[in-house]
């Protein structure tokens, strides 16, 4: 028997009841939110509703009230973003709404990040992300980066129009073991394969896992170009990143 009343915040409870339908996801959200402090539930709701001014204020107040940064991030911001990802996947919301939620999360993370970086909490893993050479689209990549950061990854963002050598330099400088490449044009998809070839030629291919994604990319393309992982969307990107780095979801 699913007891939604364990979530004290009424509006948040409504969100979970209405939009989360997969049993495992219901269970996970109930587990997270039923033990989350009411302040955290309110922060999560602010993220879900895309209220960035509210999220900014609630996060600041929670930290001032003595909640630790990890708690605010995990039980508030990331937990809220998890619901956003589900709503996006199920077509309840679209990109503008996700962007607003991301903006809200970012406003909260702006308070969290300085504390975490000062306290030396180990990130889940390090990822180098970029849109491939010739492609100036960054919306999909940015969604992935936001979700990865939300899941605790440290992300090196190379931006758009990234040459193969820039990916290689970033891996060597950062020590990242995972590279994510995005393309939004059918014409630039082949540049993913060229970047992978460049890793081979540089003798670095065995040192990194490479995942690819973007509207024109398919599993078949990913296999053909020799990528290690393929994500159809930002949620899948996080799942692939965890799988490739051997992190339990």
């Amino acid at each position, binding site marked *: 028997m699913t007891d939604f009343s364990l979530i004290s915040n009424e509006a948040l409870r409504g969100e979970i009841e209405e939009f989360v339908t997969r049993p495992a996801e219901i269970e996970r959200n109930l587990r997270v939110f039923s033990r989350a402090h009411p302040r955290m539930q309110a922060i999560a709701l602010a993220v879900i509703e895309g209220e960035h001014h509210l999220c900014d204020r609630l996060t600041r107040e929670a930290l001032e009230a003595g909640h630790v940064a990890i708690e605010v991030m995990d039980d508030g911001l990331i937990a809220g973003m998890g619901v956003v990802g589900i709503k*996006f*996947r*199920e*077509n309840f919301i*679209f990109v503008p709404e996700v962007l607003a939620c991301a903006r809200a999360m970012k406003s909260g993370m702006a308070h969290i990040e300085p504390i975490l970086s000062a306290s030396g909490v180990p990130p889940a893993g390090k990822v180098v992300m970029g849109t491939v050479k010739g492609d100036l689209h960054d919306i999909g990549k940015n969604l992935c980066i936001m979700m990865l950061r939300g899941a605790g990854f440290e992300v090196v963002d190379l931006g758009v129009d990234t040459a193969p050598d820039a990916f290689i330099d970033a891996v060597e400088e950062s020590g990242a073991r995972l590279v994510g490449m995005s393309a939004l044009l059918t014409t630039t998809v082949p540049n993913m394969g060229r970047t992978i070839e460049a890793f*081979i030629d540089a*003798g670095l*291919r*065995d040192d990194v896992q490479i995942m690819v994604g973007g*509207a024109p990319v398919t*599993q078949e393309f*990913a*296999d*053909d170009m*020799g*990528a*290690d*992982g*393929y*994500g*159809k*969307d930002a*949620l*899948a990107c996080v*799942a*692939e990143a965890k*799988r490739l780095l051997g992190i339990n979801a």
Partner: protein
Amino acid sequence: MGHVLELGRRVALQPMDAHCHDITVALYRDLAPGGTPFYAFHSYSCHPDAGLRLDFLAAAACHLGGMVASGARAHAVAWPCGAAHLSATRRLFVEVCKLAGPALPALRPPEADEARSGARYHVEGLGAGRYRLSADAPGDMSVRLRTIAGGFGKLAEMAVDEAAGPAVAFPCGHDHDRLVALLLPRALNARAAMREEESVAGRGVLVAPSAQNQPN
């Protein structure tokens, strides 16, 4: 302006040849009158250097890969065994397009070094299109050798016989020594077969929002 020609099936493309004024070079597969497959390097470019470049690429495919000139068409080459070897030919196309020319490079020895493991790998011809893989390295390299054999399978559609060393074999039953030497360094890194298995296992986990309503 010229016109589009019936050249058979395009199997490989170099959209901008950095060694020849950014012309586009394509490799077309067709059948000679006896039904034997051949491949022709072709460019629609009217640049005066294009013909010389195609001469070089065809010559390099013969030199580095062991193909032979085919009289079927200008800049046409074929495998002496009469087989198609499509994957290997595509790889050979990529390799020759990297060459600046006009001088042909030295042939590669049938061995390759791997900096990370310190190993040196060898391919040894056994006749009838079969080749044994071996490694000079401390420790057990059998897993690595099987991976490399799998790489040959992916790059050149070679059959893998893991028990024999391992060994790899061309289905045509003919030797292609130059091709094998050329492919060895690439086979060290061709892990596509393994990846394909992993990705099939990960399929169907999540569906993109844009594909949610797509009928199966």
